[in-house]
């Protein structure tokens, strides 16, 4: 009897690099990343960070310039690796004249699955497309098209599913449905890699997160460890009289004197944080005129945190934050 093979990581990238022809710099720069089988893994980063490039290399849509990429231990270009991975691309790419049933049937056929082994009907049901199974794709709503793309990626029952920004431009209800489905698949044993620029999404779904920026990995850790110490709230204190420095009683907090009459304290979600700050303010007997709390955005706080971990040169971090602030208001996202 053959010995049982040791379970290979779902995805293993070593020294992975990609430079597009004519581009000024690399889209991916020496990325090393191991994604354990069975996890829901989040690839987080601003637009242009290299998330899609990484995913498209796994999908076989982009040729890597260097390094290795393996899916369950197999080189990405091999037929076995193609069978092992399902990819939901970011762009809608449905043939408008195909019905969902025909599209699933076609995709299963391209994967070499015999008619009797196809999962067209269960997939249509699982993704809520059964009622529209025989309507052409152009008559489907945006949400249904997105779900059809997920179904197409699942025709060959891949052990690894990759979703490239699955919820970009998708409404709240559909986002919830997609998350539920991703969780169900993961419970059934599918390894999931999803890219997003919504930290909240990664936080809700993923057990591990890799942060990508400007083609380089900034951090890889469990979601919990990455979010620990995340200070996403501020307490803004207006003072009756000007101060020269932050009072010593607030030394244990992330407090700055923004103006002589204003102290800003950043704090996180850990239990009792606000109460401890208030107790310290009371003890310091500060002349408080007014106070208020603010949540400047999980993403900004997160980028700040990652930057503080000192994972990359300050110059690059500076550029990233300038881009972030220049993008103005909008949905809370790392841009």
């Amino acid at each position: 009897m053959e010995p049982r093979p040791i379970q290979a990581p779902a995805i293993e990238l070593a020294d992975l690099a990609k430079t597009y022809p004519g581009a000024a710099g690399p889209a991916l720069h020496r990325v090393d990343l191991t994604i354990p089988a069975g996890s829901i893994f989040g690839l987080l980063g601003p637009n242009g960070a290299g998330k899609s490039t990484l995913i498209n290399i796994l999908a076989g849509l982009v040729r890597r310039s260097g390094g290795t990429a393996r899916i369950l231990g197999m080189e990405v270009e091999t037929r076995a690796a193609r069978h092992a991975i399902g990819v939901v691309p970011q762009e809608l790419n449905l043939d408008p004249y195909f019905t969902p049933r025909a599209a699933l049937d076609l995709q299963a056929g391209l994967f070499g699955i015999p008619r009797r082994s196809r999962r067209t009907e269960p997939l249509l049901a699982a993704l809520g497309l059964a009622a529209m199974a025989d309507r052409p794709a152009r008559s489907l709503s945006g949400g249904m098209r997105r779900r059809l793309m997920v179904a197409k990626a699942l025709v060959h029952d891949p052990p690894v599913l990759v979703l490239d920004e699955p919820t970009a431009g998708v409404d709240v209800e559909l986002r919830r449905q997609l998350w539920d489905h991703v969780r169900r698949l993961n419970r059934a044993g599918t390894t999931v890699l999803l890219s997003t620029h919504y930290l909240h999404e990664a936080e809700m779904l993923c057990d591990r997160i890799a942060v990508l920026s400007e083609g380089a990995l900034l951090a890889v850790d469990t979601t919990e460890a990455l979010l620990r110490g995340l200070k996403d709230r501020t307490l803004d204190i207006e003072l009756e009289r000007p101060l020269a420095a932050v009072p010593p009683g607030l030394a244990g907090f992330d407090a700055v004197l923004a103006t002589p009459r204003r102290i800003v304290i950043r704090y996180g979600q850990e239990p009792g944080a606000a109460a401890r700050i208030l107790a310290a303010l009371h003890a310091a007997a500060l002349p408080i005129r007014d106070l208020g709390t603010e949540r400047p955005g999980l993403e900004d706080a997160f980028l700040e945190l990652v930057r503080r971990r000192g994972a990359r040169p300050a110059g690059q971090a500076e550029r990233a934050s300038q881009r972030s602030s220049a993008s103005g208001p909008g949905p809370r996202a790392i841009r």
Partner: protein
Amino acid sequence: MTRGAARDTEVTGRANWIGLATLYRREVRRFLAVWAQTVAGPVVAGLLLFVIFGAALAGRPPVAGAPYLTFIAPGLAMMGIAQNAFANTSSSLLVAKLQGNIVDLLVAPLSPAEFLAGIALGGVTRGLLVGALTLVAMWPFVELAVPDPWMAGFCALGGALLFSLLGVIAGLWAQRMDEQGAIASFVVAPITLLSGTFFAVAALPEPFRQIALLDPFLYVVDGFRRGLVGVGETAAATAVGIVVVANLLLVALCHRLLRSGWRLKQ
């Protein structure tokens, strides 16, 4: 650059016959779904030329030993074969690129050879269907004795494959509809119309006769005519040789382009 960098798409393992058959069926369904445009239209266009030439040149003396209408019938059928084989593969690839559903093929476990075979055979099928229907419609008005059905079939198949493969290259190359249209108008149409389709090369004045003889497709049209009518200006062996060599070269080139991901993968 690190060693192990993937220059080629290497796909190993057993052949994906179901995938190949699925792709071929998709290609055939794609054109049959709009048969009025992809099959009936080209047949009617060929027949219109047949009627125009028939009416205008009915009194013309026989060409190369055959009545004029009988002489041009195989040429018109071959024109339909070539133009439609080309149109099918080039537009299939271009539309898939524009719609983005080329991704469905690229993520699938299809080797470059399977990918090429599925697409190219779809084009061959459309070309042969148009050619066959054109011939059937002209049949009552011409004298096609078909002295050499093997030669006729070989040239039909070879011509269809030739232009199907050219269509693959054009479809890979083109990024916009007008680019594909330009190749169809400025390359495919002149070749298919001028390769002895309506005239005998012997009747051309010099230097046009010598120039015409440099056109490889001329020999395919002539071989097809020899098989259907029994008259020909060139040696049958030349047509066979050209069909074999040109198709082998084009298969090798297409396979190489697909392997490298040319214009498909960044």
